[in-house]
């Protein structure tokens, strides 16, 4: 035993001195917000890669398994990014993913030269929650009391601002964001844009005031708030209790931010002083709480939980009465309307008859002149070659395009009073020959997911969503004549301002187009009539007083779509793709239809916000983008 002890000591020393072996490439990840996400909703994924090995030039891939094994095969969506890492360096990349099932792990891989260099699997079961999220961006606000009880279905999280999504869709699971004592200037430009877009498409941002009100005068927040604070003002206790509750402790003086001018609705006031002001930003809202929620008496008041729930809960949406009949895909409808069809029977018949007739004539009536026989001997080869060339010209790529085709049907819904619009796009890809079908695109950056028809059928292929040198999508299924459809959603920069006044003789409309592209074949549908407005060029402003009897075409809830058949160029258009796309939007949003009650609808054609780029620029391409802008009609102005 005495002999053994020096050996043990020596081995221990060797172990201590030996270098610690670490993985040459280390992957770490944060799923959702603070490793919490809601299944079935888009969520951000932050991946950090540390490279301790030699310089790395490859791709970072995130594999998300979707689908339902009971209803069909599972499918994998692989999100890929270029990854270049020098030795002993680290990089963080953000993805926006849609984790659906929990049974399969999330797989993160580093791939270089076709070989997997590192891999990490994340068990999603421990990270998922069912509640909607309330994100608190504050160093000192504690809203954890909102987590007590699940009746309201909210979970409060305190994510690090640097981990906020860079794409608006990453907020899909978020019900509201509470901001206090933090400048939005801390966010990167894509993060702020994502936040702004999320609010514009229906999100809720609640900003709490406080003594450091200069934070709210910083440009980014000032652009969102209903008004700018100009100082602090004291509210007396009785007035405050009248506004909130008698249970509020007002033993100490309470100061709130003072607003001189604001644009929005006051939801709560104490005397003349607004306490909660709401401003509509597109379809969303920004709440300005002029009091400090992190200071007494509000941080100790029992009623705060109820107050938060009543103000942060999204407004109830009316249930749709529209019939859910549309099962068709708009992409297929557009292919039917626009894509070049197979050559006709008649053309094939005439060609074949001509060819066989020529051969028959050559065999039945031979040339007898000796010199011409040599020509005839060549003719037996040349005749089919000439007809083969003719077949290629008549039936070939000129008449019936070979190769890949992209088809896109887009619905653009501008948000009122906002410089953004909601984009819903259906993208179809197919080819007449087997092989790789990578579609590179530019313009909009929608998050995309397999179409509901494919999900229903359970035959969704695996997809690769790449964001390398160009954004691209690619189905793994490389069979020819198979249509692959993705549905995408985005919020795009698109400024179209419209005011519609209801007057005795007809509507008066004021339009200003700053969308960046012309709007073609624009119509106003209002009060059972459709009014043609024509082309609205980019940067143009028009004001028209329309007379119902002179300018109006009588339409009903279904027939108004017929006005879209024509265009300024005089071309007839099949409105089926647009009808299908709009019906689907109605179903998605639980609306009652277009135009909604008390609304006017501006409808017209625009250029597709998503266009082929890079290697796909030469693809055959069919696109249809329609603007559907619902505007609240204002009552007749009183003289």
């Amino acid at each position, binding site marked *: 035993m005495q002999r053994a002890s020096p050996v043990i000591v020596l081995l221990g020393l060797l172990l201590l001195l030996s270098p610690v072996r670490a993985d040459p490439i280390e992957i770490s990840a944060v799923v959702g917000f603070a490793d919490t996400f809601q299944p079935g909703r888009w969520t951000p994924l932050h991946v950090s890669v540390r490279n301790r090995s030699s310089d790395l030039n490859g791709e970072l891939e995130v594999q998300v398994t979707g689908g339902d094994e009971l209803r069909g095969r599972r499918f994998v969506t692989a999100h890929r990014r270029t990854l270049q890492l020098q030795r002993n360096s680290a990089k963080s990349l953000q993805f926006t993913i849609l984790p659906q099932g929990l049974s399969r792990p999330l797989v993160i891989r580093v791939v270089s030269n076709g070989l997997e260099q590192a891999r990490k699997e994340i068990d999603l079961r421990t990270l998922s929650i069912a509640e909607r999220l309330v994100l608190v961006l504050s160093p000192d606000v504690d809203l954890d009391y909102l987590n007590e009880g699940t009746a309201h279905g909210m979970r409060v999280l305190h994510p690090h601002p640097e981990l906020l999504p860079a794409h608006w869709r990453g907020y899909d699971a978020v019900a509201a964001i509470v901001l206090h004592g933090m400048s939005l200037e801390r966010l990167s430009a894509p993060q702020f844009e994502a936040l702004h877009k999320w609010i514009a498409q229906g999100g809720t941002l609640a900003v709490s005031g406080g003594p450091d009100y200069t934070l709210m005068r910083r440009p980014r927040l000032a652009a969102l708030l209903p008004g700018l604070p100009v100082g602090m003002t004291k509210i007396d206790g009785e007035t405050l209790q009248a506004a909130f509750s008698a249970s509020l402790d007002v033993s100490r003086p309470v100061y709130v931010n003072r607003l001189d001018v604001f644009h929005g609705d006051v939801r709560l006031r104490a005397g003349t002083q607004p306490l909660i002001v709401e401003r509509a930003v597109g379809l969303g809202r920004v709440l300005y709480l002029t009091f400090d929620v992190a200071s007494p008496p509000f941080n100790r008041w029992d009623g705060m939980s109820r107050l938060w729930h009543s103000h942060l809960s999204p407004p109830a949406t009316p249930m749709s009465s529209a019939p859910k009949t549309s099962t068709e895909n708009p992409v297929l409808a557009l292919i039917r309307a626009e894509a070049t069809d*197979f050559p006709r029977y008649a053309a094939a018949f005439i060609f074949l008859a001509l060819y066989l007739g020529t051969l028959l004539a050559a065999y039945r009536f031979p040339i007898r002149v000796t010199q011409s026989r040599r020509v005839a001997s060549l003719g037996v080869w040349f005749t089919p070659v000439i007809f083969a060339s003719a*077949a290629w010209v008549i039936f070939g790529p000129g008449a019936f395009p070979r190769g890949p085709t992209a088809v896109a049907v887009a619905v653009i819904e501008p948000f009122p009073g906002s410089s953004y619009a909601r984009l819903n796009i259906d993208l179809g890809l197919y080819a007449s020959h087997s092989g790789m079908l990578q579609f590179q695109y530019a313009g909009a950056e929608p998050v995309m997911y397999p179409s509901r028809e494919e999900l229903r059928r359970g035959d969704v292929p695996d997809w690769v969503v790449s964001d390398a040198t160009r954004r691209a999508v690619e189905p793994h299924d490389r069979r020819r004549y198979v249509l692959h459809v993705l549905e995408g959603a985005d919020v795009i920069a698109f400024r179209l301002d419209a005011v519609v006044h209801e007057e005795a003789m007809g509507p008066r409309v004021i339009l200003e187009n700053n969308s960046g592209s012309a709007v073609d074949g624009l119509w106003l549908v209002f009060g059972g009539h459709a009014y043609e407005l024509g082309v609205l060029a980019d940067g143009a402003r028009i004001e028209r007083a329309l007379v119902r009897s002179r300018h109006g075409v009588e339409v009903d809830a279904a027939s108004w779509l017929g006005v879209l058949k024509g265009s300024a160029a005089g071309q007839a258009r099949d409105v089926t793709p647009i009808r299908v796309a709009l019906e689907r939007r109605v179903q998605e949003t639980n609306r009652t239809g277009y135009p909604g009650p008390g609304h006017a609808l501006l409808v017209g054609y625009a250029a597709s916000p998503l266009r082929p780029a890079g290697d796909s620029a030469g693809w055959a391409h069919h696109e249809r983008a329609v603007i559907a802008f619902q505007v609240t009609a204002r009552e007749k102005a009183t003289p």
Partner: protein
Amino acid sequence: MVINPLVSEVITGLARPGKAQLDYLGFLLVQAVVVFLWWPKDGIAQALQSQHTPRTLLALVMAVGVTTAYFALRAGTEVLALPGQRGLREWARTPLPAGSIIRGYIVGQLLQGLHLVVLSTPLLLMAFVISGGEWPALGWCLAAVLVQALFYRLCGAITCLSLGQHRYAVINTARTIMVLVYVPVGLLAPVTSHPALAYRTLGEALPPDPFFTPMPDGLAFVSIYAALSVLAALAVHRLLLRERGMKNNPDGAGVGKAISG
């Protein structure tokens, strides 16, 4: 350059009108009917919705395979011949070495088969454009058509040299060979079946299987039929020698022994 007389006979014969051309015109008519029957009846949207490729090219390539094989078999049995083309028995009576006769016979058949494929090219291109598919796949199928036709031509020649005096027996044997090799053998050994090859290479592609890479079908088919053609050519060679009489043809004796032995 001296051209093998059997080859020059084919080149000359192809340029002259005759029964063989009219016969193949009949086969072209069959191919045209196939194109017409398999021409897509629905629009491209329906094809995409059903996820089914138009099968025009597949049907046509199968038809080209059958018609050229049958045409070659009939040519081998000498039921039909190009204008001015002599039969193998006549060539056996000439001083031309048996090896040269076989070489000329094979090259002539390949030339004739190529001509038949060229005659079908306008139809093939029409079908190829609408059916999709890839050039290499089509190329393999057409190469298979040529090699398969050579094999049937040699089979026909064996039948003719064996049963030369009995015309009906020759015709019936040829038809039996055609049916037997095309149907039961094709079913039992799909790798030797041209319709099966066409279906695998030009039919609807199956979803890719990352764990299994199949052997190139075209190569296997062409190799098998080339090997069978070599055996058939050796048999023809031996029959030619028998026609001539073994004693007068020492150049082919070794080969004959090799076949028999």
